[in-house]
């Protein structure tokens, strides 16, 4: 399966949801209400969403017919995902414009609405893969993996953005705090997804699936590489927290790079293990 465009779309979209969730949470904890405080995170989220949607469109054999994908909202989770991903990007654009214009009306309400739309998009994205004919995906591991990616990538992006934007220490602290907690939670979810994922894969190996069972399913090395990248990313984040001076952007950048590598590998493996019941 050639699913790099889907690896691209799902990771960017999940990263975007994470950035929105954590920036609103960081602003809430820090009580940041000055105009433009969410401009950079929302702009980043918008760029991530936009790039993701371009990737998803590239996946289609007939991109010019892409608007048709909104027709089956009533039945298809894929259609709902497409709609919600676009609604989420639209909401981000609105928030960026409001931040640019310094509009403070309903500051928290609009942040919460953006978080909710992001959450719904993530839910629809997860449901797309919970197909009853694909037991290797239809497990708890899929939502754990997707929410984990959202928290991990969102945390990585927010940490980097926080140290890149010139601001004083007290403004930076709440954002760094939510980023680090989110990364920790994300890694924990990833860890808990391992057992159901292995169970599903083992079960798939022992049955008559499509493709034929003679085709080997061995991606154990991916687990080892992901563990290594996670540990390196975590070490970078610890260095970012303990280092009062020095190149903070370097540690945050390295952390994000390691977490991204971990996620790209994990998502590639996710598509590679596709096995369907039947012929």
């Amino acid at each position, binding site marked *: 399966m050639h699913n790099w465009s889907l690896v691209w779309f799902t990771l960017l979209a999940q990263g975007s949801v994470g950035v929105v969730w954590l920036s609103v949470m960081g602003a809430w904890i820090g009580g940041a209400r000055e105009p433009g405080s969410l401009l950079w995170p929302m702009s980043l989220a918008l760029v991530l969403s936009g790039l993701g949607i371009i990737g998803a469109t590239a996946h289609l*054999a007939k991109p010019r*017919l892409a608007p048709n994908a909104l*027709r*089956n909202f009533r039945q*298809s989770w894929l259609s709902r995902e497409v709609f919600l991903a676009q609604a989420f990007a639209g909401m981000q654009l609105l928030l960026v414009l409001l931040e640019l214009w310094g509009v403070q009306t309903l500051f928290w309400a609009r942040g919460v609405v953006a978080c909710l739309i992001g959450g719904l998009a993530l839910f629809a994205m997860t449901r797309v893969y919970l197909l*009853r004919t*694909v037991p290797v995906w239809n497990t708890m591991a899929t939502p754990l993996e997707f929410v984990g990616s959202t928290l991990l990538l969102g945390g990585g992006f927010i940490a980097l953005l926080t140290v890149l934007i010139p601001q004083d220490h007290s403004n930076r602290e709440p954002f760094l705090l939510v980023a680090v907690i989110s990364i920790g939670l994300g890694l924990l979810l990833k860890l808990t997804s391992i057992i159901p994922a292995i169970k599903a894969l083992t079960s798939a190996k*022992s049955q008559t699936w499509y493709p*034929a069972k003679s085709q080997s399913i061995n991606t154990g090395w991916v687990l080892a590489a992901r563990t290594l990248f996670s540990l390196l990313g975590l070490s970078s984040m610890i260095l970012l927290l303990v280092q009062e001076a020095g190149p903070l952007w370097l540690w945050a950048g390295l952390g994000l790079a390691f977490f991204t590598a971990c996620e790209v590998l994990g998502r590639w493996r996710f598509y590679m293990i596709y096995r369907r019941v039947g*012929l």
Partner: protein
Amino acid sequence: MAIALKRPAFFLDSQTCTGCKTCMVACKDKNNLPLGVRWRRVVEFAGGQWIRLPDGTFQQNVFAYYLSVSCNHCQDPICVQSCPTTAMNQDEQGIVSVDPQKCVGCRYCEWACPYSAPQFNPVLGQMTKCDFCRDDLAIGGAPACVAACPTRALQFGDYDELATLYDSKTVFAPLPARDLTQPCFLLCIPKDAKPELTVDGGIANPEEVRNA
């Protein structure tokens, strides 16, 4: 004269099917399908082994049987439910087909269908599939695959009528559980049929099924 079928369904007598693949070729020929696109596939399920006995002789339990499968125009079609564009649709007779004006070629139906019925046509950049030779049915003919079958192992008829003659719950390897999509496909069980999720045996012609 048109054949008025309430719900068209295929019937395969797997005891009689010799795996000659005439049905597959007839389908490809009628629909002018390119290499790699196969609306009907003949799967060979085989297994068993030769065992050496203490007296030096051999005993074997090898087996093979064939399954000619196309779209089963399911009663609970997962492809129709999955399709984001409504290109994959089911008419009032229950025939599932693709609307080329709507299909974006996302291939999600291909992921979901447990019978590999929706097939991506790289020339068109869209999904294509068996439409039960709707044009032939309309003029009283039989689907191309049924008409071509030299042993009459493959037949068609009204699902409810066929269900009174054959067990509509029959399932054996490598077919998926019927309750996943409720296929309108009836079968006569071959002699050596293995249970649904058996580990004794496997698809012996995966390349042929995927690339013919």
